[in-house]
């Protein structure tokens, strides 16, 4: 018995909003700062997808295809953000933002910036509030991210949330590898300090 050759299912754009709209929106909202931007990215995704219907071949599901387009929109969003306003990177140690954290003279941590010891998951065994603590950490991390400069945030999200290779990020944002690492370093320095202030020193729920 020969199997019938199934026709490639045609995409059905009239169903996209109902079937994938909320899911695409939640995905975008986890990756950008606000609801309006997230909704805009979803709309842009639909516009691009409608314009490219002819190129949809059915190898991937419509859902996968729409997510590929949305991810591209998120990268484009951060590329725009990182470029405006354009802030030239100041790599001289006296003026660089790192001077906030390290003494320019010898590059040692400033005393008031010494990283504190954070409680690790191993410290919490048997306390039963690990999930809660994890959630708290994640919430504060997200709040701290919003205080980064546009360039730092772009690099951080693309590298650690979108998990793009460093090489691709350099290409997308027109950064040299050295400037890319400077931005990752600054982003981590700020996030680390912000978490320490707001998470570590938050009152522990008994």
């Amino acid at each position, binding site marked *: 018995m020969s199997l019938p050759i199934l026709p490639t299912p045609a995409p059905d*754009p*009239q169903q*996209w*909003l109902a079937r994938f*709209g*909320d899911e695409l*929106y*939640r995905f975008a*909202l*986890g*990756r950008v700062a606000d*609801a309006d931007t997230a*909704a805009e990215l*979803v*709309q842009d995704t*639909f*516009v691009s997808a*409608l314009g490219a*219907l002819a190129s949809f071949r059915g190898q991937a599901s419509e859902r996968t295809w729409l997510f590929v387009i949305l991810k591209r929109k998120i990268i484009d969003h951060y590329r725009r953000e990182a470029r405006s306003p354009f802030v030239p990177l100041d790599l001289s*140690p006296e003026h660089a933002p*790192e001077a906030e*954290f*390290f003494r320019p003279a*010898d*590059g*040692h*941590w400033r005393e008031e910036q*010494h*990283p*504190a*010891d*954070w409680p*690790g998951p191993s410290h919490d065994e048997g306390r039963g509030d690990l999930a809660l603590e994890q*959630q708290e*950490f*994640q*919430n504060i*991390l*997200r709040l701290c991210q919003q205080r980064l400069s546009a360039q730092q945030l772009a690099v*951080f*999200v693309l590298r*650690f*949330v979108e*998990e793009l290779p*460093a090489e691709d990020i350099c290409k997308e944002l027109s950064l040299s590898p*050295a400037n890319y*690492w*400077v931005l*990752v*370093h600054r982003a*981590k*320095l700020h*996030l*680390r300090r912000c*978490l320490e202030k707001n998470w570590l020193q938050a009152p522990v729920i008994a």
Partner: protein
Amino acid sequence: MSAIPSPLFNCRQATLLIERRADTPLPVRPRVQLWAHLRLCPYCRRYALQSARIARAARPAAEAVVPANLALPAVARARMQQLFDAHAGSGG
């Protein structure tokens, strides 16, 4: 490639190299110097652990902070529906 400043006695350089080595293997000399620095410097050891923890938490945080039942706001949804109606109307 430009010369990498020694991280041996410099926490600024050491923490920068900690970020850098997450993406690409360091040349031997800075790698050995960073190793030696981390043996001596408790603050940079903490930084290394905490930086990695932040990196690991970033994606789960992006997924977790959005409630699983959150829907597109009605205004945005209506705007998008118009888009699809127009597309259907154009016969395309």
